[in-house]
């Protein structure tokens, strides 16, 4: 299996987890979306040399993962798959910023290493929060929440249709790719000419499919407006969930908790 097939398989896994039924799953999608956004803004609003104050924020993903039954292994694998860009850019920091800012015992530490550590933590926090959002809410729920919070209908419908046909078209792409690699012996990616032909074929199939879907829609009375039923409602528990986390994020953002705990032990 190619990397991409693994990738797609894992969307399926996330989807299955999203169909679970725990306290976190039952929350209104809006409360989870807002909490996630607050969390991310809180994390990235720290200065670039901040490391220790980021740590309390790990409470959110850890508790959410534990409460929703999201396997830690899956989160870890996903983090590794998407790591490259952020880490590639971040790893240059230690080379560019060599000014010594502090020391751990006898070992001097440069600003670059501190900011790199900070980037790694930010990365782990923001990525796992996004994955947990979709893993406990599902794309349908996220779309519903976004639409309630002002996302245009056309765009929400676009998202749902995209997601629905992702698997169908990805499957066609994978099959085509397999057929090509079965007949090429170099194992290299195709050059632009062949690539364009493959893309063109895929596109024509996609267009034909879109026409058939439109036919199916109009057979059932589609007139351009998408009507759907609201899946969930806002309860007291949603307000409580949002308030508790917002309060925690605010405290963790304003007070360096590890620093305080540490200073109680180290004089």
């Amino acid at each position: 299996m190619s990397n991409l097939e693994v990738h797609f398989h894992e969307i399926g896994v996330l989807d299955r987890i999203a169909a679970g039924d725990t306290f976190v799953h039952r929350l209104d999608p809006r409360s989870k979306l807002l909490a996630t956004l607050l969390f991310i803004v809180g994390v990235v609003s720290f200065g670039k040399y901040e490391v220790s104050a980021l740590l309390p924020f790990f409470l959110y993903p850890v508790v959410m993962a534990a409460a929703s039954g999201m396997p830690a292994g899956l989160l870890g694998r996903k983090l590794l798959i998407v790591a490259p860009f952020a880490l590639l850019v971040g790893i240059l920091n230690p080379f560019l910023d060599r000014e010594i800012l502090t020391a751990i015992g006898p070992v001097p530490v440069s600003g670059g290493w501190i900011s790199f550590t900070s980037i790694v933590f930010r990365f782990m926090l923001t990525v796992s929060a996004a994955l947990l959002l979709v893993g406990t809410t599902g794309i349908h729920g996220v779309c519903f929440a976004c639409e309630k919070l002002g996302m245009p209908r056309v765009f929400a419908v676009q998202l749902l249709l995209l997601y629905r046909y992702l698997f169908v078209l990805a499957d066609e792409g994978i099959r085509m790719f397999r057929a090509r690699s079965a007949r090429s012996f170099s194992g290299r990616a195709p050059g632009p000419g062949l690539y364009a032909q493959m893309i063109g074929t895929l596109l024509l199939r996609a267009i034909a499919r879109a026409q058939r879907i439109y036919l199916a829609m109009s057979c059932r009375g589609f007139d351009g407006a998408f009507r759907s039923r609201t899946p969930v409602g806002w309860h007291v528990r949603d307000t409580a969930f949002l308030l508790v986390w917002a309060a925690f994020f605010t405290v963790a953002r304003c007070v360096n908790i590890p620093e305080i705990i540490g200073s109680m032990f180290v004089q």
Partner: protein
Amino acid sequence: MHMADALISPAVGGTMWVVSAGMIAHASRRLRKTLDESHIPLMGVMGAFIFAAQMINFTIPGTGSSGHLGGGLLLAILLGPDAAFLAIASVLFVQALFFADGGLLALGCNIFNLGLFPCYLAYPLVYRPLAGKNTGARQVWTASVVAAVLGLQAGALGVVFETVMSGISELSFKAFASLMLPIHLAIGVVEGMVTATVVSVVRHAHPEILRHGSGERLAGSSYRRVLAGLLIAAALTGGALAWFASAHPDGLEWAVSGITGREEIEAPKGGVHAELAAVQENVAILPDYGFATANSDGEAKTEEAAWPAVSAGTTVSGIVGGVLTLIVIALSGWVVKRRSETRKVAAG
């Protein structure tokens, strides 16, 4: 070239969110007026198509590395700029959620870089005038390549700008730009070639779709509205820049020195290999004139004031406290897991 949450500041991320959300609202409003209802499933499936197409890599000639289709320009030609922008934005949205590609805060940046530039800049201002009414293979080819290259270069510059203005990465504008622009030049050429080929295939098989896409919608007033949108985006970006500059006095300096150094980078140097060699050289000698040494003497103090202080004394307590915090978090995670499991057993 997805921006990542870990590399951006809330000011940059927030500004780009506002800009991108505004563009989505604008595109949706215009689509509601003009959209043929048969285009609704077409847009969705085209988004899924871009996804699938990105799974297949191509070799970039002469480099041995590989890239994949961005697809913004192709969709703009097929569906028109508004529908294409929404389709690309939805692709990025799903990537941010499921692949954690980029991240939720960086989503605004990514939609701006990969959607707005090809759909509202490269397509109406470069592709359309160049391709004109001619459907000849030559015009389409030239127009596609030029538009794809410019769109991707603009996008890459966007990534550089956003990263440097966020100030989390230490890369200077010049160094980062000289890394990003040449490689995206090569990818842009391939993207343009692929776009031209695919467009001619579609023109052959489904001429009616191209008629929809490049219809008369981009008449004078719409042009002006797009330009107005871009101006607003620029103003907002400027606002963020000022905000950023007031919090971090040296940030503006970076950006300004970067802008003055830009002509030099954009000047053609001939050949991908020459470009790459130049990049290597740049990166190798960077530590000599990079950001850190430039203001290590005079501005070290202001820096400590601007960012939460890091000093040797607080470091130890920070580490001890950090370890303890993580232990507490791990314990609470364990407790929550135990509780939800026992509840499940009790319920079942």
